């Protein structure tokens, strides 16, 4: 039962077995999904060089998963502060639309990208200000931009798909550098920078403290609003870069569809990775694994030929399985059931003695 026993970070305690590690089950599911694909596509795990760059399903998963990983990284920081950002999808759309619009108007690549990224950060700043200065609940504060942002993106594209032709822009999200997809390099760098910033400085600790107990954090003199704004700006930045990737992948900006529902996927990735939506403790590695699970799941659906109408059922089942495996309560229940015959419950014994 252990009802009041809080879910602890078992990994941090001595004696935590491998299966107790927070990342054990998500990684297991990821591996299982990858292996399942081999059944449908025997060459699934193979990676070879084609046209001078890496080629293979795994590369595709990383490439197409790159924007999601990025957005989920930003989302992790926001969630750690106890917030959530629903507007990332809109930011993705705005950033891609801005960049493509500027490029199509003949502006330079650098200028266009800079403008798009700065705009995304400003959107993040807006969210952060609504949350901290006006004290609006994050979900609703970012809902405003989620609704309006897509309108802004369409305004930029005039509701059309802007198609551009720029080989160097394509590099960001759809091309290869030294044989590696450049998007993956961006993600790795972003991840490394985030990890260093949060774990090598005190940023991570302070954010976890604010997310864990805002009042206590105020009373130790942590400038919570600054940190929270920073988290939203960072999230905006990640979404902005992801928007560049998505639009660069197809060399087009689709104000209406780019990043549609990516906020849900990102939140899902964060949670599958073991970060609680209530804020506090966060795990960047977990988020990456979570995002990869989602992307692999999508790929599995395509390649396994699951009919589109049942796709959602399949996704629901997988998500539920991951969550259940991650739940200590569930595992306890399973193992207790298995053990039951050998150890009779205590009560029966005592009742025999006394009754």
């Amino acid at each position, binding site marked *: 039962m252990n009802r009041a026993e809080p879910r602890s970070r078992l990994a941090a305690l001595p004696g935590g077995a491998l299966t107790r590690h927070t990342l054990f089950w998500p990684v297991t599911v990821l591996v299982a999904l990858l292996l399942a694909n081999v059944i*449908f596509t025997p*060459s699934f795990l193979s990676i070879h060089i084609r046209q001078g760059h890496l080629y293979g399903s795994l590369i595709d998963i990383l490439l197409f998963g790159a924007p999601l990983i990025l957005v989920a990284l930003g989302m992790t920081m926001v969630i750690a502060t106890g917030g959530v950002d629903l507007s990332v999808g809109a930011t993705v759309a705005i950033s891609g639309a801005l960049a493509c619009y500027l490029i199509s108007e003949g502006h330079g690549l650098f200028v266009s990208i800079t403008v798009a990224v700065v705009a995304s950060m400003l959107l993040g700043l807006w969210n952060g200000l609504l949350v901290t200065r006006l004290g609006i609940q994050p979900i609703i504060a970012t809902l405003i931009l989620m609704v309006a942002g897509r309108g802004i993106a369409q305004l930029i594209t005039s*509701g059309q*798909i802007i*198609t551009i032709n720029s080989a160097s822009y394509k590099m960001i999200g759809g091309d290869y550098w030294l044989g590696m997809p450049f998007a993956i390099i961006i993600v790795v760098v972003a991840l490394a920078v985030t990890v260093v910033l949060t774990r090598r400085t005190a940023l991570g600790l302070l954010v976890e403290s604010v997310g864990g107990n805002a009042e206590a954090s105020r009373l130790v003199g942590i400038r919570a609003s600054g940190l929270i704004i920073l988290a939203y700006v960072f999230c905006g930045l990640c979404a902005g870069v992801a928007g560049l990737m998505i639009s660069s*992948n*197809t060399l087009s900006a689709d104000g209406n569809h780019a990043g549609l529902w990516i906020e849900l996927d990102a939140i899902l990735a964060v949670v599958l990775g073991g970060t609680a939506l209530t804020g506090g403790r966060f795990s960047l590695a977990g988020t990456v694994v979570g995002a990869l699970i989602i992307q692999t799941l999508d790929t599995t659906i395509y390649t396994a030929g699951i009919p589109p109408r049942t796709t959602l059922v399949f996704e629901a089942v997988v998500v539920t399985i991951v969550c259940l495996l991650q739940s200590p309560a569930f595992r306890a229940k399973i193992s207790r059931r298995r053990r039951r015959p050998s150890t009779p419950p205590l009560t029966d014994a005592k009742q025999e003695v006394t009754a």
Partner: protein
Amino acid sequence: SDKDSGGSGSGSSKIVLGFSQVGAESGWRTANTKSIQASAGTAGIELKFSDAQQKQENQIAAIRSFIKQKVDVIGFSPVVVTGWDAVLKEAKAAKIPVVLTDRAVDSDPSLYVTFIGSDFVEEGKKAGQWLVDEYKDAKEPVNIIQLEGTVGSAPAIDRKKGFEEVIGSNPNLKVVASQSGDFTRAKGKEVMQALLKANKDVDVLFAHNDDMGLGAMQAIEEAGLTPGKDIKIVTIDAVKDGMTALSEGKFNYIVECSPLLGDQLMATVKKVKAGETVEKRIVTVETVFDQAKAKEALPTRQY
């Protein structure tokens, strides 16, 4: 009492058309909206435009508000086929004629005046027919990948239905994989990339709209194949980017689905207002393009 005040008081002689659009979910839809707005302007009709963000309930509410505003004619592109009886009856009770555009409804035809628009099943059939003709001599199986539109949406369901019905006549035409690409380029590319790895000899791609086709085309190129040759591409819509691809030989065939209904709509509205009878079904002028026709048509393409 003030039955004739018609909308905002900008002159009661002007016809007021309340139009409820589905949303702005695609470039096609935007072209549709623009066409309607432009035509209303030239025809001297006052347009009350309301965007439903792809939600039926919003559209019903908008139509209700048009009734309250006592517009002269109500026009709308239904988000879905069913479920309009109640509000259409209200309109009828308020003696406001209703004109449907783009998509049909399954209500009692007495509840609306006419329906102007294309037929999605027919579009699917046209695409299928081209395939059947193209491969009528094929001896071995032709492997087809189908990229469907958003799951559950009317165009996706109908185009799939029409297409599969026609190709069913030739047992060699085999759909080896059919996945949803959500009508978008990004998703079209992503899905195609995965499907190309899972399915070896793919001969044909049928995409429910140009955008998915364009995305898939990139995936084909990145897999080292030549679109239009190694894999033939058939799509529906004929937006400018699609026509460009077709004229460059990367697409093979496009079935047009025209969004330019504005003039027809305004003409009909005027007739209805004038009390003339109009046909129950006005079919839009639509054609099909192969590579040669695309080259001709491209320079004058508006959307």
